[in-house]
């Protein structure tokens, strides 16, 4: 590449990826005599920034609602500055946002549940779009391969289900998130005896009669628990 073109890219990189207030003027200084209207060139800076803002808003609606507008804008700005997008797929620019919030929560005085909530929202998206192949047929009870497990000290499943109204209650939770094999939507629940039993039976190849014999729980109840989890797509049955 010739130096002129190299210089063009270097100056555009400075302008588009740094957020100094004088970035536009510095871009023009790098190209003496360039007479393109500043308002037109500024469109590019705004559009590049808009992609980050709109993508984070789409991926993290509840996290966004957890702080006021000014703080959200500052979080987005700081995240963009610290985490250039490394994926050609635009949604993936938001993948590092939960980690960023976790690193920044104490220093910025963010609500304590915010990093865990962001991690929940990212996992919702990741499960929804998972490339993990879900078999059309299985030979035995099988855990849905899109299943993700999160643990956090808040009751986030209930909070997400009520669309972020109020505050999440404190309390350790193991959240299970998976994509329904037919409806292809993300399902989630706070792990309970029923769901954990179905997952355990799938992982260890246990039959209802074996579980009944080992636990003393009626076999019909065990079958009902498994069938309910199969209907929800948490586990797949032959």
């Amino acid at each position, binding site marked *: *590449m010739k130096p002129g073109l190299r210089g063009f890219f270097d100056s555009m990189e400075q302008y588009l990826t740094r957020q100094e207030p004088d970035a536009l003027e510095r871009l023009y200084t790098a190209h003496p005599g360039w007479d393109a209207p500043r308002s037109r060139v500024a469109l590019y800076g705004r559009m590049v920034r808009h992609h980050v803002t709109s993508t984070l808003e789409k991926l993290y609606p509840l996290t966004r609602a957890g702080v006021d507008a000014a703080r959200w804008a500052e979080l987005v700005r700081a995240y963009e500055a610290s985490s250039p997008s490394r994926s050609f797929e635009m949604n993936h620019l938001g993948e590092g946002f939960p980690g960023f919030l976790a690193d920044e929560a104490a220093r910025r005085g963010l609500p304590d549940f915010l990093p865990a909530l962001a991690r929940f929202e990212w996992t919702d998206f990741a499960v929804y779009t998972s490339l993990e192949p879900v078999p059309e047929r299985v030979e035995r009870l099988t855990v849905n391969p899109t299943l993700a497990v999160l643990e956090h000290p808040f009751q986030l499943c209930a909070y997400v289900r009520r669309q972020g109204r109020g505050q999440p209650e404190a309390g350790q939770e193991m959240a299970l998130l998976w994509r329904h094999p037919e409806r292809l939507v993300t399902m989630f629940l706070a792990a309970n005896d029923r769901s954990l039993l179905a997952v355990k039976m799938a992982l260890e190849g246990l039959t209802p009669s074996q579980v009944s014999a080992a636990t003393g729980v009626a076999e019909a109840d065990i079958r009902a628990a498994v069938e309910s989890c199969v209907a929800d797509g948490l586990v797949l049955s032959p």
Partner: protein
Amino acid sequence: MSYARRHGLKPLGAGIGLRREFYARLPETSRALDWVEIIPENFLTLGGRPRRALDACVERWPVLPHGVALNIGGPEPLAEDYLSGLKALVERVDAPFFSDHLCYSRLRGAYLHDLLPLPFSEEAVEHVVPRVREVQERVGRPFLLENPSYYALMPGGTLDEAAFLRHVAEEADCGLLLDVNNVYVNARNHGYDPRAFVDALPLERVVQIHLAGHEQQPDVIIDTHGAPVCDEVWSLYRYVLERTGPVSTLLEWDQDIPSLEAVLDEADRARAVLAEVESR
């Protein structure tokens, strides 16, 4: 001989884009539709609904990938993971050809997720041409470059836009995806005659056309793909087809997406223009 004829490419008719809003309904539509365009970035890393919708469309129509992240004009080597994924996708949907934009979208490893204009210069031509050849070689199917919209001429330009497009297309021996709305938007924003611009292009290389809507702001027109195609763009479309003959045409709608029926109505209108041109 035209680029399409050399590569055995026939006009496919009028198509629309497979967008998230249409994942459920498009594969089921009983309306006329000749082909479907996909943004490969939406399908390379995303399974679930996007993948199911794509598979259903492949069963019914020709599917053409139209990328936004190839970064054909960028300063860094072409991204290996992207290129290998793109090749696999093109083969999976058995696309007769594929396309991306004559622009850059990545700097110092950071994806900017926008179609950023290059300076119209010999240097840029020299930089882009071997990259286009590499893409064609690696993917192994005919490749088209789209004329992007631009709001400012970039510094260092030495050529006019049509000459820039011509040099790249001819020296790299690739096809052109002529975005007629972009021609209109650029002509209005930069004060030139869109028909003279069209006349200056290597029209024998045009294999696909895009039609879209835009947004008129006080001092600039923004290429939003978020409105119906305006009368001037329809008129320019006819002007192009009168010179090229029928060309596979896409109704592009990416923002403020209306009902599937409304987008298909626009595709019907394009199909009618194509039929009219063909019957002459």
